């Protein structure tokens, strides 16, 4: 059977499963729709959280990113897991004890102000939309590479599937679909990783193979990798190349950002009590760690494997996968020294950032390029980082069903995250804006209808962003984490750990964090990108890490304003005491 037929079967079966689950667990009340009736088992919620959290970027791009960033890639590994400690220890149990439906709900009631609620909704919508556009794009890319449909068609199919189970099932439907999606995703990630690990080191556990000796050799894989890439002119794999302060701040921004992301926090509203919320965060991290500790192993295997099979190899002897991906346009080779061999080293092979293919083929069958050769580097090979995970099964010579599985896994990752985001956007509109602020008289039935309508409209908007992606999708990811860290996290934290923080303080703090972080990122990413280097950064902190400074600013503003404003009413102090009580 052909790879493509198999992919259709795998993807089709997984979609049928998701829809089946959604129909079986559809929502009947707003309680079901917003928080799955608060009856989800902590282990199941842990799995759902993991699927919700691990997006198309985690599944498809992270290993490739680490393979080329080396040690600098650690910021993602620590940053995107360490936030769960903050969640489990500082936020999740207390927000669950509070017991309402959304994050702005808590902010609105704790800070006794609808202005605070609306500011929180604005932050939430900004953070979540940034994210969801990327997911829909991910769905489109997987469809177009493996099923050979247009990206637009892929996005529309993806929208349709998410529409069915998110609008019908609400949080309840999403939770149980995410459990299934987690299983598909993790199986698809581990199978190629295990085979690669056995192939290179003989050790079937990738996490251990990563630190093991190469097969039939006395040399450690890491040492070999370090030596190989240093010889080719790259900086060492095991040492940081960015400044320590920048590494520190990016890691911290990702951690605090993770803890402040509304679609993650809201997952802990679905379990029965605060004890379950804590344990559930632990289970979630276990399930996330299975992928996140495999990723750096896959990264090192793939980097070494790629260099081994490409460097100084005659093009005519290049492996099949090299030529397949060259045909798709994500790998290219420019024979600068006319020796028929591929030379790979640091630096870009050409002046432009991406290959521009002509329609012709060279005498060895390679695709010819119209790029201008980069004279300052001897590198002849271009490789798109995103293909590392997708190409792994082919690099390891795995059977075609593994390729089909990886496609289904990538879709599961993108769809599960998109659905989670969709739900927090729609519930903040129907619950926080309509029911709590502007139309308090509507019935529960009406509210549920509005929630479904909001979800439908959000899907349409997200789909449009997927089909017509703004050029800056990849760049604004820094926004989501930086903004969550500098707006929502400090306000939630102080709301629980300080009884006297006032509404003026919360509103001022959120706005200060938002304006500072937003302007810093916009200035360096869009207004003056030519100044975007460490000479011009504040204290040497890049836009990716600036959320931490925004967060500190937010805390300072809150402390100052709390001192100068009237202390909160008795009812709020009682509320804080209640949520702290076991």
């Amino acid at each position, binding site marked *: 059977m052909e790879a493509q037929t198999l992919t259709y079967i795998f993807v089709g079966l997984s979609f049928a499963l998701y829809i089946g689950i959604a129909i079986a667990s559809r929502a009947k009340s707003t309680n079901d729709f917003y928080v799955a009736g608060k009856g989800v088992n902590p282990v199941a919620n842990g799995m759902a959280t993991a699927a919700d959290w691990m997006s198309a970027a985690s599944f498809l791009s992270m290993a490739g990113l680490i393979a080329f960033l080396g*040690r600098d*890639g*650690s910021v993602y*590994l*620590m940053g995107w*897991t*360490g936030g*769960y*400690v*903050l969640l*489990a*220890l*500082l936020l999740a149990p207390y927000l669950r004890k509070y017991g309402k439906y959304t994050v702005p709900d808590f902010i609105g009631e704790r800070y006794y102000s609808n202005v605070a609620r609306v500011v929180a909704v604005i932050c939430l919508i900004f953070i979540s939309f940034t994210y969801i556009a990327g997911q829909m794009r991910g769905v489109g890319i997987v469809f177009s590479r493996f099923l050979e449909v247009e990206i637009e068609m892929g996005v529309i199919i993806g929208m349709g599937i998410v529409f069915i189970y998110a609008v019908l099932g609400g949080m309840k439907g999403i939770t149980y679909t995410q459990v299934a999606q987690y299983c598909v995703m993790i199986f698809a990630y581990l199978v190629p990783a295990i085979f690669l690990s056995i192939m290179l080191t003989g050790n079937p556990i990738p*996490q*251990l193979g*990563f*630190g*093991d*000796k190469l097969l039939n050799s006395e040399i*450690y*894989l*890491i*040492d070999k990798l370090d030596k190989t890439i240093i010889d080719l002119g790259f900086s060492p794999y*095991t040492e*940081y190349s960015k400044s*320590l302060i920048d*590494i*520190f701040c990016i*890691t*911290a921004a990702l*951690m605090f950002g993770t803890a402040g992301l509304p679609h993650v926090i809201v997952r802990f509203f679905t379990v029965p009590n605060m*004890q379950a919320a*804590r*344990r559930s*965060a*632990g289970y979630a*991290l*276990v399930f996330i*760690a299975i992928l*996140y*500790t495999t990723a*750096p192993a896959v990264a090192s295997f793939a980097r070494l494997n790629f260099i081994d099979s490409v460097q100084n190899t005659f093009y005519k002897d290049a492996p099949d996968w090299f030529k397949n991906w060259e045909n798709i346009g994500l790998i290219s080779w420019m024979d600068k020294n006319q020796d028929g061999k591929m030379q790979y080293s640091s630096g870009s092979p050409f002046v432009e950032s991406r290959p521009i293919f002509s329609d012709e083929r060279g005498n060895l069958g390679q695709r010819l390029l119209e790029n201008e050769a980069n004279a300052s580097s001897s590198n002849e090979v271009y490789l798109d980082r995103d293909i590392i995970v997708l190409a792994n099964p082919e690099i390891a010579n795995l059977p075609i069903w593994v390729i089909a599985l990886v496609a289904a896994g990538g879709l599961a990752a993108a769809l599960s995250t998109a659905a989670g985001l969709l739900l927090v956007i729609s519930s903040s509109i129907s619950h926080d804006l309509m029911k709590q602020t502007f139309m308090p008289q509507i019935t529960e039935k009406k509210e549920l209808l509005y929630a479904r309508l909001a979800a439908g409209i959000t899907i349409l908007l997200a789909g449009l962003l997927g089909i017509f992606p703004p050029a800056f999708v990849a760049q604004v990811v820094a926004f989501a984490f930086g903004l969550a860290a500098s707006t929502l996290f400090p306000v939630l934290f102080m709301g629980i750990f300080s009884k006297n923080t006032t509404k003026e303080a919360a509103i001022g703090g959120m706005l200060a964090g938002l304006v500072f972080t937003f302007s810093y990122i916009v200035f360096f990413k869009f207004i003056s990108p030519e100044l975007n280097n460490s000479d011009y950064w504040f204290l040497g902190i890049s836009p990716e890490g600036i959320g931490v400074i925004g967060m500190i600013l937010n805390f300072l503003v809150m402390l100052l304003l709390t001192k100068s404003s009237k202390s909160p009413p008795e009812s709020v102090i009682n509320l804080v005491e209640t949520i*702290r*009580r*076991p």
Partner: protein
Amino acid sequence: MTFWQKNLILLSSLLFFWFLCSFGFGILFSEYISFMKIGGFELGFWFSQQGSIYVFIILIFTYSYLVERLEKKEKK
């Protein structure tokens, strides 16, 4: 000491380890502990790409276990 004060002490001590293993061993003092090795890994590198994640998991379950004991005492 009240339940809340005990909880705050527990929280801060666990967050100390959270900081030590990620920002400390993984980033700030990574160089100073790199003479130690686990298999092929230098210790600092291992903490930044694997070890800190395992520590995070242990911290959450430790907190969950200890605070539930405190909560039971408090309820009695």
